[in-house]
């Protein structure tokens, strides 16, 4: 077996309290098994997610980031998820410029009713990040004191 296949990535999931966190709870109550590589951080809303935090996680050694919230128009706070999406559109260019592999940051909409979808989203993300291998781009730079 090659290292790519045995590599277990560590992925941080930033999720909103009302849709995806509840959806992930539903995955549990439905006993749908999925990969254990994801650590969930609960936010009130995806609109609260500061992309500096995404950078911080990558800098500290996360292999991938998963951001998930309510579907468009379903936001508990009406527009928070739109703000999250809009800010990402701007931020991703900066990350790309800084040399990040944008494939390491995944977005999803998972509602409180989509327990099965959460399992699928996590599994897909883990598989894709596993194929990318460990994230060393930024941690290397950070170690050398460049970033």
């Amino acid at each position, binding site marked *: 077996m090659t290292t790519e296949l045995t590599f*277990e990535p*560590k992925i*941080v999931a930033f999720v909103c*309290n009302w849709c995806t*966190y*509840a959806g*992930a*709870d*539903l*995955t*549990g*109550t439905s*006993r*749908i*098994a*999925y990969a*254990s*590589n994801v*650590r*969930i*951080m*609960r*936010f*009130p*809303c995806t*609109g*609260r*997610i*500061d*992309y500096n*935090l995404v950078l*911080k*996680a990558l800098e*500290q*050694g*996360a292999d991938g980031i998963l951001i998930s919230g309510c579907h468009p128009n379903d936001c*508990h*706070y*009406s*527009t*928070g998820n739109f*703000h*999250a999406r809009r*800010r990402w559109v701007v931020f991703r260019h900066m990350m790309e410029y800084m040399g990040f592999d944008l494939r390491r940051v995944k977005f999803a909409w998972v509602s409180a009713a989509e327990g099965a979808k959460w*399992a699928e989203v996590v599994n897909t993300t883990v598989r894709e990040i596993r194929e990318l291998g460990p994230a060393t781009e930024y941690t290397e730079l950070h170690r050398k004191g460049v970033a």
Partner: protein
Amino acid sequence: MCSDPGQNMIKSAIKEKNLTGVVVAACSPRMHEPTFRRACAEAGLNPFLCEMANLREQCSWVHPRTDATTEKAIDIVSMLVAKVKRNAPLFPIKVPVTRTALVIGGGIAGIQSALDIANAGRQVVLVEREPSIGGHMSQLSETFPTLDCSQCILTPRMVEVAQHPNITLHTYAEVESLSGFIGNFTARIRKKARSIDERSCTGCGECVTACPIKKIPSEFNAGLGLRSAIYVPFPQAVPNKPVIDRGRCTYFQKGKCRFCETKCPAKAIRFDQQDEILDIAVGAVVVSTGFTVVETSFFPEYGYGLYKDVITGLQFERLLSASGPTLGEVRRPSDGKTPKNVVFLACAGSRDPAKGIEYCSKICCMYTAKHAMLYRHKVPDGDATVFYMDIRAAGKGYDEFVRRAIEDDEVRYIRGRVSRVFERQGKLVVKGADTLLGGQQVEIEADLVVLASAAVANPGAEELAQRLHVSYDGHSFFSEAHPKLRPVETNSAGIFLAGACQAPKDIPESVGQASAAASKVVGLFSCEELTREPVIAVVNRTAPPAYSTCAGCFMCRSACPFNAIESEEIKGRDGQILKTLARVNPGLCQGCGTCVAFCRSKAIDLQGFTHEQMYAQVMDLFA
């Protein structure tokens, strides 16, 4: 852990070990966070110093028993420990409540809400744009499915509103602005000049008789009747006091006349009356501004409103009504003759994406059946034909009512749509298709065509929504906070919806929603203070405030979905403004934190989910 013994373990640990924070590693916080926070509070620890690590739903129930799962469980607990170390004690926010409700719109929904709130012992200010309350229901002839006379059941309620000691009624008035937040709104109301001293006026009607300008299309009769320039909209109007239509009055237009003034025995005419502006403190708002129907001019295929005998359903209501321009006899507008062939078009505009009205107006199927039925009762030798797309008669006794129209009253129902209404040798011809006969073309000569024209939002609904800070949908109907579970609330706390301003609905539904909104208001008013979760945003405000890291860019304001960001002027000793800072209104903030992510200088933070707490979790995970 959530059982009493489990909670007691936590409580005694807090006391014995003087704990300053608790992490309960058990189920989802969405399940038992309130339970454990309460337990902490009972042990004397601030409840917001308790966090839950979700080991059940998000770990043990979804992963097999392996080392990797254990590792994840340790990470989850450790992250929450890192967070709880940085938790600050928080205290519920108390907001005082002004226990007076504002009801905007005096149709049946507004009347019902106002009466329910007033009967619960709270003060109500009811504002109506027109000179009388009553709304569309007062225009209706009889109501489905019972055929009660609409005015007979409505007018006693209108009188009750006028006489209720807890209701202050402002007719011919509009809400100009609404500021503040739940429990603490200020409504600015413009009482338009009625040109009448309401206190001296006895409602005798001499002025109306005296007025020489008598040929103004009456709004109440949907343009089919006439009124004078000084007028009472309809005989049972509440208040039964006239108003001068300044745009039509000879005195206001040409400076001469004043006939009404000479005839008024009470000397109540006031030509010099000015609009009055009132600022009223209210704690909750019920919006019940209703709907309107599209006019016949909306339909090029039915003659752009040029054929006098093509009328809307609302106009037909007036022809059927005993208080209408024909005193309840069905006579057509063009020549006053009794029509022997009446064609009703259900779905005129509704469910027609080409016309921009994709939705079903909901009430038309029922009132068209009622119209056809009442017409057959009044003109037994006449023929009634209904063109329909589908018959949507869901409701108690509704389908039976439609069956009665078809079976007992022999109304002819043709399933199909009408492509054109045109004139041929002085007669109207309705051309449509019968889809149950394979789309066969049908032409029917009609003496009168009644369009069940689409119910649409009031003109100006969007502007009102913006003034009240409530959201509205693509058709300008006001949006409820949740389509299923919060159908009468809006996204703005303390503002509720009732009736057809939210979506087309019939009388029972409007009344039901109005009572629901009233019960929400009464619930809100049951306490002198509102208690709210302290998970809200706060702006850094170091002393002296001029050194706050807030730069006053107000990006937060553009992000906030709740208009919770206010500006605060920091003044020097000489009164000069040193700086303008953002300030979060704790009554309005719902705690989403969108502003926090927007803030460039990180001057705004969300209590319970601070930067420090969130970064600590990330740092801990990779430590």
